[in-house]
């Protein structure tokens, strides 16, 4: 049952969604903050600015109140005193001071003082010339006036300090607003920076995911194709996404097809050993190798004796079975680095490396004896023997064809001298002991 995998499209959709979500989040945060800053600006326009103006007006009005008080306290004109006392009275109860109860109280106290001053000074200035005890009265009134004037002087100091406080408050309001605006703009900056960082992070995550699920699998697949081309091994990781799984599957299929084609091109379908062409090819390579390393190399030609008779008497099926078993037994005897090829019909060739003449002869003998013995024990096929011709590499001019041809001659000799024999080629025969 095929595994259910997601499509690459899903990955892309997810990544796009992530990028969109993060972008949306950042934009929302920035919008929120800018909205807040707009609100701040509006608040300062609609609330703080009027409040600052209110403070400024109050400070100026306090100054006016002081001037009115001065005119009442020190003025010489009764009408002027009256006018200013009235104005001070109205100003003292004007709603403009309502924003601060302390100021309200100080202004009303100031007005009470102004009223007292007005009454005292009116009495003083209006004292009738014929008043009995005038001097005494004047002195008393003057003392009272002086006490009140001193009080007024002190209260003016209070008003002055209030005025300063109002101005300070207004300034504080102003700087508070400025501070808030600065704070907001720095917040916007911080959020923006966090946003950019987050965005970069998301991009990195997206790139990593794309690399892991898309780029790396494709690179691996292309490497695997190169490996298949040069007949090497490869390994593919399990795919997470549908398309990559399809590619990997195709690569695997291609690889197994290539293997099958290679097998079909190089082996003999009946016995499974190398066919003539591939045997020749490998033998050429081994010969070149042996030449360059000056290593020994021998070629054996082998033929099943009277094989035509097996086919004729027992049928082709038994013939084929005989060939198969024969191949199998020889293979079991061959050491590593040596190989067997079926050159045609009942004719085989064996290439031996790392064997000197004596070892080659011994192995050939072993093969001849073994095949005879094993075929005698095998009930499904008739007993058979083989003849073997050996030719070893002697000169650098030796080729596979020349060696085979010489080995073939030795084989002919083995056959013509009675079969079931191993014959060493004439060039090598003197190196062997006579048995």
């Amino acid at each position: 049952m095929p595994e259910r995998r997601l499509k690459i499209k899903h990955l892309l959709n997810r990544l796009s969604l992530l990028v969109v979500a993060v972008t949306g989040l950042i934009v929302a945060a920035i919008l929120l903050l800018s909205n807040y800053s707009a609100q701040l600006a509006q608040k300062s326009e609609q609330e703080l600015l009027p409040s600052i103006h209110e403070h400024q007006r109050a400070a100026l009005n306090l100054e006016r109140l002081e001037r009115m008080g001065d005119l009442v306290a020190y003025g010489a004109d009764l009408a002027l005193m009256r006018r200013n006392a009235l104005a001070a009275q109205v100003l003292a109860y004007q709603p403009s001071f309502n924003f601060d109860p302390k100021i309200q109280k100080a202004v009303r106290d100031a007005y009470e003082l102004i009223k007292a001053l007005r009454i005292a000074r009116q009495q003083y200035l209006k004292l009738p010339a014929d008043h009995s005890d005038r001097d005494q009265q004047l002195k008393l009134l003057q003392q009272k006036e002086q006490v009140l004037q001193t009080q007024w002087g002190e209260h003016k100091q209070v008003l002055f300090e209030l005025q300063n406080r109002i101005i300070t408050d207004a300034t504080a309001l102003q700087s508070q607003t400025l501070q808030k605006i600065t704070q907001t703009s720095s917040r916007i900056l911080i959020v923006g920076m966090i946003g950019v960082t987050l965005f970069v992070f998301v991009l990195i995550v997206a790139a990593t995911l794309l690399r892991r699920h898309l780029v790396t699998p494709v690179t691996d697949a292309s490497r695997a194709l190169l490996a298949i081309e040069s007949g090497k091994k490869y390994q593919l990781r399990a795919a997470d996404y549908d398309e990559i799984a399809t590619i990997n599957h195709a690569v695997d299929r291609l690889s197994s097809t290539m293997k099958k084609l290679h097998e079909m091109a190089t082996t003999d379908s009946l016995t499974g050993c190398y066919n003539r062409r591939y045997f020749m090819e490998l033998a050429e390579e081994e010969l070149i190798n042996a030449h360059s390393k000056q290593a020994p190399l021998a070629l054996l030609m082998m033929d099943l004796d009277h094989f035509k008779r097996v086919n004729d008497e027992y049928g082709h099926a038994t013939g084929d079975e005989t060939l198969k078993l024969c191949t199998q037994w020889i293979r079991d005897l061959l050491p590593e680095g040596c190989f067997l090829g079926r050159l045609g019909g009942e004719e085989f060739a064996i290439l031996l490396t790392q064997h000197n003449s004596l070892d080659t002869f011994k192995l050939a003998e072993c093969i001849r004896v073994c095949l005879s013995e094993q075929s005698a024990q095998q009930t499904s096929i008739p007993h058979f023997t083989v003849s073997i011709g050996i030719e070893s590499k002697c000169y650098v001019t030796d080729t596979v064809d020349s060696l085979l041809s010489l080995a073939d001659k030795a084989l002919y000799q083995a056959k013509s001298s009675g079969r079931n024999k191993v014959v060493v080629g004439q060039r090598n025969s003197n190196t062997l002991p006579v048995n």
Partner: protein
Amino acid sequence: MKRQLISLFCAGFALLGSNQTLADNSYKIGISDSFQPFNYRDAQGQLKGFNVDVANALCTEMKAKCEFVVMRFPQIIPALENNEVQFAPANFLITAERAKKINFSAKYYRSTTSLIGSADKAHLDPEQVLKDMNNKVGTQKGSAQNRYLVEHAHTQVIELSSIGEGLSKLNKQEIDYLIAPTLFALNFLQRPENSRMDFIGEPINNPTLSGTVHIGITKQQPELQQEIDSALAALVKQGKLRQIINQYFPFNVY
């Protein structure tokens, strides 16, 4: 495409511009003429005063042609209701009853209400005065003060069609006290010929009698309120309102 858009914008602006010039930008202003220093006639019979100057400044700011329609105070609200006049700088305190009939601008100054009378009674508490059934108290008919007296005072209430009439009655001692906006009373008391008179105690402590003062606006032109508020805000910002205030009052009444 761009060119089309630009021409469209131009057309839009042209329309806006023409709309502005086509709009009915002439207003009639309801005003009374016996309320010094707010609105009164000078020796030559010319309308003068704080409200007149504020109205003119507003009209200049709104680029409107304005015409004063002089009437008695009690007629002003009905005239606004009927759109006979479009706005009236008539020292309105906001009351729920008035708000049903007319719109109000933002504040243009702040005031309180005081009782005035003979100077020898200046030490009295106005609240006590208003509880005495023997006292005759004059008030501008249709004013917030009138309403307050009717609702709270036990005195005899003399309703007057103009505040000027009240002042002369007070001088002739036909009434004992007059209840009036403090700034108006201040102007009256400060005149040397009225030195026999004085404020009776402190301003009356009641939220319906003090606070912000507004221009009355007809409800039949709802957009006018916004227009007047913008113009008023501009006057405040440019310091023009302060200039006008300085001409008429001894301190900043805004």
